[in-house]
């Protein structure tokens, strides 16, 4: 029925062009333009789409999108133009002009206004231009970016007009880039215009800009090719810089993890000379404490979730510290002066701790959540920095600073250093050496627990967590020089950065192997590490 009518209309239009022109709706009359859609040919609909968009009517976007989707129908009953929407599985019709609902319509009660691919493109372009004038800046930005991604020389003027009207800086930026790209696509554009466009695109300095400009280097026009070539080179250089910066950041991040894992060891191994192979397991205990705290918060106090790490940190310090004191009193103190035996005994302790945790919590990974302030990321130029990595770096440095103050400025730190340097003399001065030993070991262990809290945010919390850090953290301490906290800091960050700079060339595993071998060789050269303790203590 409708089809017949449409054929009739087309035939009439062909036969009587003048009368058809007379019926053409006036520009700016949204209702008339929409009303003309059902009886128009594809070519006419395409023209109508542009004119509908030009009305700037608020309803235009909805209507045009419905048209492209094939959801713009005419009702057989009263020939009204409606938008058909799916409401609870049934088709409901809504008037295209008033939004008034006609309720559910029978399946064959309406016929869709037909569209073809060229029409869909026209609609997309029209909607894009319309959205460019949307009151919401976020929508405008989106539209500008969409226009950039699908450049169309025909839209250049519309984009330029939108750019002139635009107030928001971010949207202006995006729009000017979109205009530039549209100009570059336009073969008719003048050379100065295209050169200016190249400069605009080049200012992005990212991979997208590179993608746009690289093909232009082959341009037949030498001036354009030269300009594009220079721009590409500039961008490449900038990208290399950012890449380097990103690698440094990754290195710092890895370094902070290594620092956290190794810093407790720097106390037990570096200061006390005790090889604590259970160090990794103390880290693991810290991570499990975090898991435990989060579990309680999840079930009982969901509101406190963002505070979970701050609550877990002191607890982890206490738990790991208490276990550390128990290890020292129960086993290490019988073995002072026999470092190799200590190594074996603490290895035994590590096996027991691991198996205990495995028996209680099971062998699988446990989920530890990120609080909201630790999830997400932000961008500086072309590098992405995730909040959890950033906070771990801050945390590692804070722990380091506090530890330094404890060792240098507090009575207990003084006693620790006294006992390490000369046990007999310290005992004569009235220091309870046994108690100081226990406290020192407990401090190292507690810091391992703190490391566990941080590592639970970026690593799998499983009974094997500690194992994966033990070799690395020994490397850091040995590389930096036992007995020197600054050495540990330098060791952690240099190993971290070296690792990340090697990774792009060698792959993650090979980079790690290369670093390990390099450390082994380095120790040959400087058997006491980067910052060796000088003096008689060395041979003791």
């Amino acid at each position, binding site marked *: 029925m409708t089809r017949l009518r449409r054929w009739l209309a087309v035939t009439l239009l062909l036969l009587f062009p003048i009368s058809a022109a007379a019926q053409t709706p006036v520009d700016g009359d949204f209702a008339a333009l929409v009303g003309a859609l059902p009886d128009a040919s594809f070519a006419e609909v395409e023209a109508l789409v542009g004119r509908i968009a030009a009305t700037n009517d608020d309803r235009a976007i909805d209507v045009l999108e419905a048209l492209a989707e094939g959801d713009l129908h005419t009702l057989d009953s009263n020939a009204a133009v409606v938008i058909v929407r799916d409401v609870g599985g049934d088709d409901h019709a809504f008037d295209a002009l008033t939004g008034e609902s006609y309720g559910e319509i029978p399946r064959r009660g309406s016929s869709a206004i037909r569209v073809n691919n060229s029409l869909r493109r026209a609609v997309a372009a029209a909607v894009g231009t319309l959205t460019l004038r949307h009151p919401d800046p976020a929508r405008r930005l989106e539209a500008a970016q969409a226009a950039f991604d699908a450049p169309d020389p025909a839209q250049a003027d519309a984009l330029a007009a939108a750019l002139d009207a635009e107030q928001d800086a971010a949207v202006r930026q995006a729009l000017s880039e979109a205009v530039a790209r549209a100009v570059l696509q336009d073969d008719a554009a003048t050379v100065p215009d295209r050169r200016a466009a190249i400069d605009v695109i080049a200012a992005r300095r990212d991979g997208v800009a590179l993608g746009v400009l690289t093909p232009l280097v082959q341009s037949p026009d030498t001036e354009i090719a030269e300009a594009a070539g220079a721009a590409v080179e500039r961008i490449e250089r900038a990208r290399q810089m950012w890449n380097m910066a990103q690698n440094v950041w990754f290195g710092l991040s890895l370094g902070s993890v290594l620092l956290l894992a190794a810093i407790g060891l720097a106390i037990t191994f570096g200061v006390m000379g005790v090889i604590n192979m259970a160090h990794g397991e103390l880290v693991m205990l810290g991570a499990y404490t975090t898991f435990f705290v989060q579990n309680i918060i999840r079930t009982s106090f969901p509101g406190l979730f963002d505070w979970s790490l701050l609550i877990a940190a002191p607890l982890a310090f206490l738990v790991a510290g208490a276990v550390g004191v128990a290890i020292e009193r129960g086993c290490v103190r019988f073995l002072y002066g026999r470092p190799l035996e200590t190594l074996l005994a603490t290895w035994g302790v590590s096996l027991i701790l691991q198996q205990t945790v495995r028996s209680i919590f099971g062998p699988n990974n446990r989920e530890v959540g990120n609080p909201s302030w630790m999830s997400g990321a932000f961008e500086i130029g072309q590098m992405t920095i995730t909040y959890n990595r950033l906070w771990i770096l801050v945390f590692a440095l804070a722990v380091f600073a506090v530890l330094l103050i404890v060792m240098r400025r507090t009575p207990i730190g003084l006693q620790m250093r006294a006992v390490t340097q000369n046990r007999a003399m310290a005992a004569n001065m009235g220091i309870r050496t046994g108690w100081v030993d226990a406290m020192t070991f407990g401090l190292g262990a507690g810091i391992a627990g703190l490391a566990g809290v941080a590592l639970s945010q970026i690593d799998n919390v499983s009974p094997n967590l500690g194992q994966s850090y033990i070799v690395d953290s*020994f490397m850091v301490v040995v590389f930096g020089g036992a007995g020197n906290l600054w050495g540990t800091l330098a060791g952690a960050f240099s190993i971290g950065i070296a690792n990340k700079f090697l990774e792009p060339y060698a792959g993650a595993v090979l980079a790690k192997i290369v670093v390990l071998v390099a450390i082994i060789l380095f120790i040959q050269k400087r058997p006491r590490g980067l910052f060796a303790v000088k003096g008689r203590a060395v041979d003791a």
Partner: protein
Amino acid sequence: MTALIDRRMGIFLAGLFVLTVAIPLGNLAFTDRFVPSYVVSLFGKYLCYALLAVALDLVWGYCGILSLGHGAFFALGGYAMGMHLMREIGDRGVYGNPLLPDFMVFLNYDALPWYWLGFDMFWFACIMVLLAPGALAFVFGWFAFRSRVTGVYLSIITQAMTYALMLAFFRNEMGFGGNNGLTDFKDVLGFNLQSDATRAGLFVLSAIALAAGLLIAKAITNSKLGKVLIAVRDAESRTRFIGYRVEHYKLFVFVVSAMMAGVAGALYTPQVGIINPGEFSPANSIGIVIWVALGGRGTLVGAAMGAIIVGAAQTLLTGWFPEIWIFVLGALFIFVTIFMPQGVLGVIENTLRRRPAARDLTTAREAKA
């Protein structure tokens, strides 16, 4: 000869001889398999561990080098033998490629990597079993001992060495089968590895290797060189000041020990039927140390006993109470280091000596010295 085989060595070798005769005989001579076949392989495995423990005791007990990387030498020997066994599979693999082992076909290798060349010859593999660990130990020891890396630092870098090797062997690109290692062996020198007779033969070979390893280690420690080694262990600086080139002695004993470990690995691979990068894991190497410590450091025979005791205990306990084994192992580490510094052998000999009926008091004392 009398000095070489003292009382404890004599008893141990006699016991080993009885085992070597009894187990294969019990397996092969009776039609109803008086000794089940898996027991033969199991004991063969313990004997390989024992040889490995003797190798470690030679450097740790007599020269004070606590190597936490001896598992690497063991695994290298195992891989050298495993490569030969892979080549011997020939075209009987899953993909039926006559030249490339299955995993290489799977990983789209076009040709055999150069370091696999020659492994189709048994004698070449046997040389590599000694050469690969020996060369690694030589290079590593050359650098480490010359720059006087000692004690704990040496332990840590040996651990780093085996860790680095583990990471390397896990890589598929290395051409050693990556994660899965080398497995699916068919036969060795034409003898089917699944047959009882071959298993028994490998068992006897392991026993002979262990006895030979013990005697070689004993000969080294009994010689003048051995005395210097003990001097290095007890007072390295003093020995150096007297005029000995300490690093040469250490290097020699380290390389010998590594080769011994390599032989142990080479015998281990065909009996277990697989060699994979897990053998390089630092935890394995620390495990070896506890065998030696449990049996008695610096006694050679004790180290071998320790390996067999721990190996047997692990098999039994993981069978009975799988959860308990790790606790027992952990407790063993702590208990032995704190309460039994001389190990099981020391405890046994002390008990025997304290008994009034003990007649050969002097012999025991000599043995201790």
